[in-house]
């Protein structure tokens, strides 16, 4: 009887926690939308809304690899790059054929996601044989490879079909009136700007739905079992390779989705170190670590706060990044060091006492 009681109690607790997570996203959307309507948002901040959604998706998806699967991956920006370019390429090709932006963008999202997933599997198969630091370094390398390969691709289209080259656009040998879609380091220009804040928020919700439900299922249990003890997981018949790869490719797929959002927010898409390089991968990892490894809601909030922080500190000019760094270090110490955790406990105890007093 006692067991039954705790069961229902606990089930409702996970559900409640998930509803809060979804609720935060919806509430944030409504509040921002109200401010937008009232004209109280600066154009600078307005321009940040779609990237914000992108960062949240990236952070949540990377948490699946780092927190749930327990594999340190530093190549997340690479998968985002795959999603961005494959979808931008699609949208550029289909702009005339599918004039309805809604249908075209939905298809673009699917294509970006699927391509990133395929790359996730392709890279995951060799890479997931490694562990820890080795895995981190190899994923880092793969991320860079993807970015650099994209930089040398020239892809054009004329009446005879598609032409590809790794030299320059002239060697494509296009006919008169042919269209160079991917121009090497100059990337893809003229991608339709289909990304909106609303679509971004919907994609966040879908990402959360996938990740949260995955974690709280048989599959998620298997993934976390492998994370906690690989040998024991094998001994009870869990297919380690399969579930590791699954987590990795779902994570890659969702990074691809974020890439689609990114690509359709800009008119020029270029693979540069700052957007698809390891800097980006590290930034996403910082969100995950700061928000709490394995904590989905935490990484979501960390992504928002850390993206907004540099903008909010803009008034401080030169000291901006210095203060950003100090805040980052202070938060890490507060959340992760033994001393910081003690302070947290004390604060918690203080509030609990207050509550009981009130009651």
């Amino acid at each position: 009887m006692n067991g039954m009681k705790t069961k229902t109690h606990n089930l409702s607790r996970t559900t409640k926690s998930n509803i809060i997570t979804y609720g935060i996203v919806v509430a944030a959307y409504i509040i921002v939308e109200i401010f937008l309507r009232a004209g109280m948002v600066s154009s600078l901040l307005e321009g940040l809304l779609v990237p914000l959604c992108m960062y949240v998706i990236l952070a949540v998806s990377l948490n699946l690899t780092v927190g749930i699967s327990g594999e340190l991956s530093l190549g997340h920006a690479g998968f985002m790059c795959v999603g961005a370019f494959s979808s931008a390429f699609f949208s550029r090709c289909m702009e005339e054929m599918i004039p309805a932006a809604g249908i075209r963008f939905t298809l673009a999202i699917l294509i970006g996601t699927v391509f990133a997933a395929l790359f996730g599997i392709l890279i995951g198969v060799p890479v997931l044989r490694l562990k820890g630091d080795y895995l981190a370094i190899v994923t880092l390398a793969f991320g860079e490879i993807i970015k650099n390969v994209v930089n040398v691709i020239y892809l054009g289209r004329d009446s005879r079909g598609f032409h590809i080259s790794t030299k320059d656009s002239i060697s494509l040998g296009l006919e008169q009136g042919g269209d160079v879609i991917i121009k090497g380091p100059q990337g893809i220009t003229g991608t339709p700007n289909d990304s909106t804040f609303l679509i971004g928020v919907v994609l966040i919700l879908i990402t959360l739905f996938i990740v949260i439900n995955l974690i709280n299922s048989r599959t998620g249990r298997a993934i976390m079992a492998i994370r906690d003890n690989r040998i024991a997981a094998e001994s009870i018949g869990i297919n380690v390779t399969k579930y590791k790869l699954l987590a990795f490719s779902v994570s890659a797929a969702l990074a691809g989705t974020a890439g689609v959002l990114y690509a359709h927010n800009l008119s020029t898409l270029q693979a540069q170190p700052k957007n698809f390089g390891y800097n980006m991968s590290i930034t996403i990892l910082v969100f995950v670590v700061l928000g709490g490894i394995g904590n989905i809601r935490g990484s979501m909030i960390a992504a928002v706060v850390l993206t907004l922080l540099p903008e909010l500190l803009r008034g401080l000019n030169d000291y901006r990044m210095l203060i950003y760094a100090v805040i980052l270090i202070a938060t890490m110490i507060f959340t992760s060091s033994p001393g910081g955790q003690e302070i947290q406990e004390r604060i918690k105890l203080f509030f609990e006492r207050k509550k009981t007093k009130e009651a």
Partner: protein
Amino acid sequence: MALLEVKNLGISFGGLRAVDDFNLTIEQGELYGLIGPNGAGKTTIFNLLTGVYKPTDGYIMLDGENITGKKTIEINRHGIARTFQNIRLFSELTVLDNVKAGLHNHHPYSTLTGILRLPKYYRVEKEMNERAMELLKVFGLDKEAYYKASNLPYGQQRKLEIARALATDPKLLLLDEPAAGMNPNETQELMKTIRFVRDEFHMTILLIEHDMKLVSGICERLTVLNFGQILAEGETTAVLNDPKVIAAYLGE
């Protein structure tokens, strides 16, 4: 027909012959002990039986099927489950989820079903919860179902490991030093639990143990291993009184 039949099993690591010409026959429902001094090769035999190592010689038959050289997960599906000398729980998962992980292959639904929360998800999860709670109740762990596994006291962690192994519905249960690190009271309780598991689940159990009280208390037959080779085998009391065995343990 014997449940487990091991013939001429051997493995070499480089030049070292860790296990040599090992034979073992265990009947259905038996409680069998594998003992020997440290480094005799007991755990190596467990690792051979569960496919962690591939034998260089010999074969292993489980319930009439040849499982020699199969992978760990296949061997588990054929019906061998084990616990570990140094406890290996899924430390960040709850006690309940540890057992549910053990039910993984017996209550399947696809990943997509899980993500989309189709009706099957709720049905199978409910089955899993019930089955897992049943198992936990057997081991007196049902009140701790929602504790993190790493927060359990040592003795209960050992029990949870057995519960998780049983969740895979094995024919043969291998226990690697189940009483290691336990005080005499806990050992007494463990003996009861092991006997109970055998009777309640009609389980066949092979265990490695150093605690002679436990071995002589519950094992019906024994094999003594020394330097990778069989030193003695047979009825427990006879084996334990064998001068060769006493010499190996206490020195001549």
